[in-house]
């Protein structure tokens, strides 16, 4: 069909277009521009070229926040994928109570991050928290959790008498507590996505494997894992993007990213710089750096996907 100039399609598009341009496109472009300014809300700011970016490179808190965020992503994403695939496989196998289990696993995902952050902050309380109560039942001494700045690997190995070198200490126990909570919160969504993916795999493959005498674990590794890989890539991408944006947990469960900045994540740092300290130009530079990082990872994952999927 030949494309003609007509006015009406644009009228249909207009309301959405106005909102998207005004409140997405313009702010995104603005944040790029502001990152070259010394901007603190009053007036229009002063152009300072790349100074914000130079300061960022020499800012130890920026690097610490980046490091913390990478720890979160590196632990949370694989943990979430492994657990959710595991649960999805189990859920796919059962006949009764499927709906009930699905509902239970999905519940944390629909509830508000604010409410559950408040609950988990109490769960991790050193004196009155549920976590230490449960650990007490299996003979583990009370942990500091959100107030513990020492590394989680350091603490684990210290218990069995090994002193790890500094670079192997890992994320602080406080950050590890945040990671546990974040995995719990997002698990339901990934499980549901995997479950939908599993239901799309034809039973024929499994029947054939059964005839050939392949064990269940062989079937899992040689049929399920390869055939579910498109879903895995989707889950990997979404979970990574979401986990880079972790904010509410830090705001609600920690004292400004403490102890000793070990739970300060990059989005919290952007918030703190932009809205507490009103260094909006600098905060925009950090935000843009984060954007480029996420964009880079997205492109990388897409490339990888093309190589790997079946």
């Amino acid at each position, binding site marked *: 069909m030949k*494309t003609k*100039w007509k006015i*009406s*399609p644009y009228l*249909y*598009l207009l*309301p*959405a277009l106005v*909102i*998207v341009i005004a*409140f*997405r496109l*313009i*702010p*995104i472009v*603005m*944040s790029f521009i*502001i990152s070259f300014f010394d901007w603190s809300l009053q007036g229009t700011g002063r152009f300072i070229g790349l100074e914000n970016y130079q300061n960022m490179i020499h800012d130890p808190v920026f690097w610490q926040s980046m490091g913390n965020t990478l720890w979160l992503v590196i632990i949370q994403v694989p943990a979430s994928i492994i657990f959710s695939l595991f649960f999805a496989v*189990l859920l796919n*196998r*059962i006949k009764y109570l499927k*709906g009930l*289990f*699905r*509902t*239970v*696993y*999905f*519940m*944390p995902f*629909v*509830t*508000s991050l*604010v*409410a*559950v952050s*408040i609950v*988990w*902050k109490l*769960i991790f309380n050193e*004196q*009155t928290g*549920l976590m230490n*109560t449960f650990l007490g039942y299996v003979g583990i001494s009370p942990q500091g959790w959100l107030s513990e700045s020492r590394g989680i690997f350091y603490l684990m190995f210290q218990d069995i008498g090994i002193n790890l070198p500094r670079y192997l200490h890992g994320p602080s126990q406080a950050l590890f507590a945040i990671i546990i909570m974040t995995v*719990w919160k997002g698990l339901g969504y990934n499980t*549901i*996505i995997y479950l*939908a993916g599993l239901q799309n795999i034809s039973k024929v493959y499994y029947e054939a494997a059964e005839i050939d005498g392949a064990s269940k674990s062989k079937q899992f590794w040689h049929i399920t894992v390869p055939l579910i890989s498109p879903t895995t890539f*989707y889950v990997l991408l979404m979970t990574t993007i979401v986990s*880079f944006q972790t*904010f*509410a947990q830090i*705001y609600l469960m920690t004292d400004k990213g403490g102890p000793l900045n070990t739970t300060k994540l990059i989005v919290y740092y*952007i918030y703190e710089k*932009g809205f507490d300290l009103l260094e*909006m130009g600098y905060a925009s530079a950090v*935000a*843009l750096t984060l*954007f480029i990082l996420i964009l880079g990872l*997205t492109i990388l994952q897409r490339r990888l996907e093309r190589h790997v999927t079946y």
Partner: protein
Amino acid sequence: MDRIRSTITYLILTIFGLTMIIPFIWMISTALMTQSEFNKQETLFIPKEEYYVWNNEGVKERILLVMEEGDTSVIHLLDEELNIKEEYKKVPSAQIELVRKKPSLHFSNFVKAFKKVPFGLYFYNTIYVSFLSLIGVLFTGLLAAYAFSRMEFRGRDFFFYLFLSMMMVPQPIYMISSYILLDKLNWLDTYNALIIPWTANIFTIFLFRQHFKALPKELFDAAAIDGCSVFGMLWRIVIPLSKPIIATASVFSLISSWNSFMWPLVMINRPELRVLQVGLSYFNQEASTQTTLLMAASTFSIIPILILFFFAQKQIIASYAKTGLKD
């Protein structure tokens, strides 16, 4: 063999299922305790209460037991508000009884939490903002998706990819510039800041477009022959045939506005305009030692979403599952 296998499957699912909901159970049980019971840390899930009464010839009065010396005991008498009304009274030990109540549920915590902070107002703000955003999302979404799926026009692909790329940008990236923009518009600390930027949802547009494209072409041809206008087709054919997808998009939109936190936290300073999540986060700072009230507030803040969820859990889960399927 299959029997054992299935038992183990159920066992694992149950254990992990409990882990998923224990935080909620704990939240609710803590919300129903007295603060002193929580502080004692003896109760795990089911709130209980133990206290002494003085059985004075059939009239039972709450007391504090100071000490017991053989046949006589020293007690403080308490009034209805549990304040001491008579100190160091000596009574026969035989008249002292220990009362154990299990479960002992203090629903009054909910009332107290609700009165302590204007949660009623926060609920109102949240509902107001969520519904106006929803109306906007449906209005802009239906129109734009109709144009994208059923019309030919110049620049269609360009606009489509523009929208797609905007969808990929995470919210924290443009938070600061949005704040500056809303400041220039004088919209900070107004409902506008909470509603208008969220009256278009790109994901919803894609969801609708996908659905509209699948509608049979014959319907539109027949309607055109009958002299139905382009807008008439949207109103009389497309929308009636899209009720399930509109419901899905509405649920997504309501859940995400209800739970939205960082945006309203940043854009709103005036306490009268706080939404529920922001109000709850301030309550978390102010009442950090009043655990039971905090848990009560957390409980009632998630109840509307949980009701919505249980009411339509099958549809909601199916809708979310669809977001992961590639076309």
